[in-house]
């Protein structure tokens, strides 16, 4: 008994001393922050009501969306307004498979890999942005650049450089994450380290029992007048969501 507790003490002191160094140096810490931010955004399961505004130099339009998701592995997004787009839906399943349903032609289409990086519903988000999964965290080497203070919160500035063989084209990405894991800003830089697009959080409010980025804007740096804004109206985390939502038959014939 004494021996074991002694041993535990020794081990604990080693653990406490050594990894402290390792944590801040090798970026495991930064990786955790990113992982937490993703978990925070997604929750275990969630139901969301939001609107998406696509802005272009000569037009702008707004869509209302409803989304269900389980652990970020399965996601269903349905358009509820305007009438013209009502019923358009996107289903993302575990292994990066994306399906799309268009009521006008009454067809379910699997988005081929070749279209994954194309625009999702005409917005500045790509199909890939919509179907992001956990593995994305391991495709980068994350480094904590610095911490800042803003509005009484600590803000971690993390640089994520894609690994050599990962399927990410960016030169690097820089995230600003608040200590309560709300992401304030996400910059995408090309390989010349020039800014290409930025995801900015415009409004943070308490929703669904936690602080949440309720208004986010994706803006192309080189095309100033083109952006897409997503604004969350209603959010319910950890709500029991039935599995049948995430099926092709439900995609075509909605039961909810």
């Amino acid at each position, binding site marked *: 008994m004494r021996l074991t507790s002694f041993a535990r003490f020794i081990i604990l002191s080693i653990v406490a001393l050594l990894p402290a160094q390792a944590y801040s140096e090798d970026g495991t810490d930064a990786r955790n922050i990113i992982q937490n931010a993703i978990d925070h955004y997604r929750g275990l399961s969630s139901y969301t009501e939001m609107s998406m505004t696509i802005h272009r130099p000569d037009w702008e339009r707004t869509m209302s969306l409803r989304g269900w998701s389980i652990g970020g592995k399965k996601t269903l997004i349905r358009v509820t307004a305007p009438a013209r787009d009502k019923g358009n839906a996107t289903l993302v399943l575990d292994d990066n498979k994306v399906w799309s349903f268009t009521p006008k032609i009454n067809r379910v289409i699997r988005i081929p890999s070749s279209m994954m990086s194309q625009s999702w519903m005409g917005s500045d988000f790509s199909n890939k942005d919509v179907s992001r999964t956990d593995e994305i965290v391991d495709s980068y080497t994350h480094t904590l650049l610095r911490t800042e203070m803003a509005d009484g919160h600590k803000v971690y500035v993390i640089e994520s450089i894609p690994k*050599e063989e990962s399927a990410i084209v960016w030169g690097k990405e820089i995230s600003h994450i608040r200590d309560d894991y709300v992401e304030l800003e996400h910059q995408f830089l090309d390989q010349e380290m020039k800014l290409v697009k930025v995801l900015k959080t415009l409004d943070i409010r308490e929703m669904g029992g936690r602080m949440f980025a309720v208004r986010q804007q994706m803006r192309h740096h080189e095309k100033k007048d083109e952006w897409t804004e997503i604004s969350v109206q209603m959010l319910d985390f950890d709500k029991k969501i039935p599995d049948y939502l995430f099926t092709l038959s439900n995609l075509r014939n909605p039961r909810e």
Partner: protein
Amino acid sequence: MNTASKLSWKIIFRMAWRNLWRNHRRSLIMLSAIALGVWGMIWMTALMRGMVDQMIDNSIKTLSGHIQIHAAGYLDDPSVEHLIPPVNESPALQALLDSNDVTAWSQRIRVPAVIRSEREVYAVTLVGIDPARERGLSFIEESVSDGVYITSVDDKRLLVGRKLLDRLETKLNRRVVMMSQDPDNNIAERGFRIGGIFDTDPQATETSYVFGGLETVRKMLNLGTGISEISLLGHDYRQLDELKKKTQSAAMENADVKTWAEQDPYMGTMLNVMDGFILIWFAIIFLALSFGLVNTLLMAVFERTREIGLVQALGMKSSNILFMVLIESIIMLMIGLAAGNLLSWLTILPVQDGIDISGVADGLEWAGMSSTLLPALLARDVLTANAVVLVLGIFASLVPAWRASRKVPIEAITRVWQ
């Protein structure tokens, strides 16, 4: 008798020669017409041959090879689902490929894919190659203009066309992402660094192919040992029937063995059409020539009606008169041919390294042609042109010669004109 006939041949030849130069202006015009005609035949043929040769050569070098082996169904659906076992798993094929019948061969993985940079996305064909084997078989290595060629089957870098690189707004040594499908229909994707740039004609090739190491591409696509195609070169692109039969019997049973001409029927037909077209071209030029030739000879014979009557009256046989006119025609044809051949040789010599036609390159590109035209002077075509003019020329001049020999001496002598 013997001496007499010898003597008469000599005399006939001398008379023909002198007759030819009696109206030297008319003869020179006819000579230059023949020379120009022959020049037109040879020169145009050399250009057209050069054009077709180049198109076929381009086609063969653009990954076609002389003969290709695919899995059945691959050509209709060039995906990872249609694969054949690699060469080292079929001893019969290996033996054939290593034999003297085959000068070069290679195996590749070739799938539709998507290449993505920070700003652009393009659909391309991703080809995993064995770099050492591609040497002398395809255009790839010789067209690398920047960076390096694929160094090994495990090379983790890509070789990308210059035009595609510009469209992707990326550069040498930058990373791009390739995306395709694995055999289970899942997305197979991977980041690659661009290790080399290739420049080639036509530019469509630069935008449609991206090359990588065979093993690297295989790993990316989660393939077993299968490959998409085997491409091989024989000795002559015109004679492949035998090699095709051998390949077919050596390859696995349901493999799809095709020659370049079957693979690219447009090019295959082109070659056949060209042979026919050249003959038609010769016929047209000759037809124009023969009118001039017959007219010149008829005129000459007509002018000499009285003297032909006279020599006949003096005892010259009508067959000798026939030969006299014929020989006159043959001398004219021979001199014309010699001048024409010389002219074609002199005009082809300065452009034997190619004619720059880049001004119209855009228009020609769809046909798979390059911006330099390399004339191809084939001995066969030169001989055909000469033979056509000489043989048909002699036939054409039979008419005036026959007419000359059929004159009745008394009528000819007493004939008065003007």
